[in-house]
């Protein structure tokens, strides 16, 4: 079976700074691939290359077996790669349904009387979010009044509805509390069960481990390897994620200063 996305030895340089080098991984449909890394590990660069914001400087990306090169976010989106950014790409003062359809509003009528089909948009927005298990009271509510988890859920439902094959989630749980993070993880599972390939970027192994099928760990722009869930016990993941030996050294150092 060919995977949805194959990355082979992808790298990115900003001038003489190596932001990303030698990243090789793949994403299968119906699987969650977690990309873990500390701050500055190259996670953002990795997302931006996939989302078409930046272009890679070396390596190959294949989408369903054919090589691709996204010039713009729009192009990536048209190829079924939807990204839910950390800042969510939402307009706080606009209602949920307008945000849901922003940029792709359903219309009716002929120009110059072409107008947004408001009833249809509201119904679809409520329905689609219901399918994901998201329960919004009123789609006329402005997004600014939703909680962080609810906003994430709207963004995920939107990406799923607009035919995303691959869903990239950039640190969706980093600003959330424990319960809200749990809600978002549930939506990740829901998206996976609907056959999407999910790329879940996080620095929290406790969030990644329960939902992930495969893990890629980035450290200082380099990939520390790909692991299937079965090959990687949770403690090992946590250890690798925190920089392994570095953490042990740090723990030792902290212990010694306490005395």
């Amino acid at each position, binding site marked *: 079976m060919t995977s949805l996305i194959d990355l082979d030895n992808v790298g990115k340089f900003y001038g003489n700074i190596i932001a990303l080098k030698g990243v090789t991984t793949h994403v299968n449909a119906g699987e969650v691939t977690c990309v873990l890394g500390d701050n500055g590990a190259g996670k953002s660069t990795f997302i931006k290359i996939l989302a078409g914001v930046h272009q890679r400087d070396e390596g190959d990306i294949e989408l369903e077996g054919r090589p691709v090169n996204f010039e713009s976010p729009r192009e990536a989106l048209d190829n079924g790669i939807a990204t839910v950014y950390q800042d969510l790409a939402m*307009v706080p003062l606009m209602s949920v349904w307008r945000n849901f359809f922003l940029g792709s509003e359903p219309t009716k009528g002929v120009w110059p009387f072409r107008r947004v089909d408001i009833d249809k948009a509201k119904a679809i927005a409520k329905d689609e979010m219901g399918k994901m298990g998201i329960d919004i009271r009123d789609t006329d509510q402005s997004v600014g*009044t939703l909680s962080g988890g609810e906003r994430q859920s709207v963004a995920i439902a939107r990406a799923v509805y607009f035919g995303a094959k691959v869903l990239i989630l950039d640190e969706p749980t980093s600003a959330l509390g*424990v319960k809200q993070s749990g809600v978002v993880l*549930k939506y990740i599972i829901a998206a996976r069960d609907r056959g999407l390939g999910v790329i879940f970027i996080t620095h929290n192994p406790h969030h990644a481990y329960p939902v992930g099928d495969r893990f890629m760990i980035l450290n200082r722009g380099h990939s520390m390897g790909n692991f299937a869930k079965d090959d990687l016990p949770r403690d090992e993941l946590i250890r690798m994620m925190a920089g392994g030996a570095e953490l042990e050294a740090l723990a030792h150092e902290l212990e010694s200063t306490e005395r």
Partner: protein
Amino acid sequence: MSEIAAATGDQPVGGGAGKPIGVEGVDERLAYRGVFQRLLIRPEIGAIIGAAAIWLFFWAVTGGFGTAGGILPTMAVAANLGIMAVVVSMLMIGGEFDLSSGAATGTLGIVTILLVKDVGELGGAGLSLYIAIPLSLVVALAIGWTNGVVVERTGLPSFIVTLAMFFVLRGFKLGFSKKIIDNISVGRVDEGHGYDFFVKIFGSSWARNDHTWDARDPVYMVLVLAGAALLALALYEFNFRRRSPFNPTGMFAFLGGLAGVVAGIAILHTTDGVGANALAALVITGSAIVAFLGLAVWRYERQSAGSVEITGTSLYLVVGGLVAIGLGIGAAWALDVDSQQTVLDLVGFARWPVVIVSGVVGFRMSYQRLATHMAVSHEARVQGIVAVGWLTLLSAFGAYAFMFMATEQGLRAMLFATGVIGGLITLAMAAHRLGRALPAARSVVLFLIAVSIAVIAFFMRSQSGTPKFRAEAFTVLLALALLILCWGIVSAVFVQRRHGDAAADRLASRVAIVGGAAVIAGVLVRLLFTTQDEIDAGIPPAQFRVEFLWFIAVTLVATYVLGKTRFGSWIFAVGGNKQAARQIGVPAARTKTQLFMIVSAGAWLVGLLLAFRLNTIQSGTGNGLEFEYIIAAVVGGTALTGGYGSVFGAAIGAFIMAMSTQGIPAARWNSDWRFAFLGMILLGAVIANNFIRKQAEASR
């Protein structure tokens, strides 16, 4: 998977039992918000209330503000300002400013005329208007396109870019005018080929005095009454729970009552004398109550008898409100309306007790505030004692100064206005407090409000010398009292809705739109036509100008575009969060550039309207007006930060500005004060709108 289920154990579960019957498409967790609550969170509500208040104010203090001769010129002033305010507010919702918009209006008028002219050393192009007008539109769009592209490409604030454009246009206007026709006023668009055709579109007007229609008043009356009845129906439909099936008896009572009201008004207008007037009043009141009750019987569900107990704070509010109204009326009764005597002379020796009491009150209030503070340290004690001393002296002296400066006449007006308005507001607060929990008790309070208003109406009529208050205010106040009375009776007997009802809301909004349109049509009939009687009485001529139709058209189109089209959604999105909008696939740069082009197309329209009205355009025309457009938009509820606002509000804002332009000279004040007035309106409006917006965000 089990870990996730545990983490999300208390996720709210939708659906569930207890969904009220007959409610489709509404989530049962949403509390039903009445029509007033929904209106109160609209961005333009502050502007509408402000416009009404300012209109009332000028109506009261000027001679002609309520007549067609006063309103039609205000509409003409509002039109040019309003067209630009509407397009500028669209741009502001999109998150940008255009400081060149004012200068552009003059520029495009001048461009059109210069294209037509065939004189001077270099000569104009000597084109026909059929070519010159589309060509100047192209120039306009090019100006807007340049603004937009420069803003987008350079990433500079639009403030700077359009300020530069403002100076460029200003220079071009002067430079080209002087170079081509050697004059700073560019004139005579009427020499152009095709003038006769285009003047109908951009320059025609309707002289009211040339259009007599003797059936005007009955038509006006019928339209306004029918509109009011429809608005009442809509209000009821928004608020009461529908019964099923409907009861047709009520419908006949409603229609009968309506006929009775019309008959009563006919009696009033065709007869004279106290007895006939009393009979008419009786017929109108009785029929109105029958009509409203009939309407409710026909469509809504009865409720079981409620409690009429009024206790606690509400009771104090009711008593306090009635006492305040009584004191206001009593003061107006007791004091002499023509007296220029100061209050000091009026109270005689009693001035000293007043001064002493004010001093004591000042001492008590400041001491209570500062007592705890004074216990802190020695220094604080000294400072506190000094402060208390000052405030005591200040209140005593303030009371004396007030008595010295206020005349008896002024005191009377002040006491009457504060007593009556404060009392009515207090009563309304009591009614609001009793709310839906105690509908019967609230109805008692509404009944008291209706009676108070009626008493005030009769009192004002007996006291006032001018026909404005004797007839107009009297009629309006009595009608208001009648409506409140009917509302009170009906809401005591019928069940008010607590849940959304999409079908009822839809019907109600449609009925409300038709009713509103009927009322507006009635008012227009009265504004556009005159009667032979009025001509014989020698009313001054007034004109309705085509600018106003353009203004209405632009406002309607802009409202439609913002609310219903994709482009409208994108405007809000690029103004609210441009980065997000772009990430999600909204063509942000294109949207903003198109907005700049819309603004300059608006400037082109206004430029043409000016050219065809004035025939000559000065090179300074429009300079500096861009701030008035922005003020009108802000007064109308558009956020300076973008992403929030309404073009309808901007249109109302333009009306507010036009009323102050026209009203200040009409009130015989020096028109220099206009800017002080505008400044205060701007500040007040921004504060009010900010407050409303916070409420809106909290209640959504």
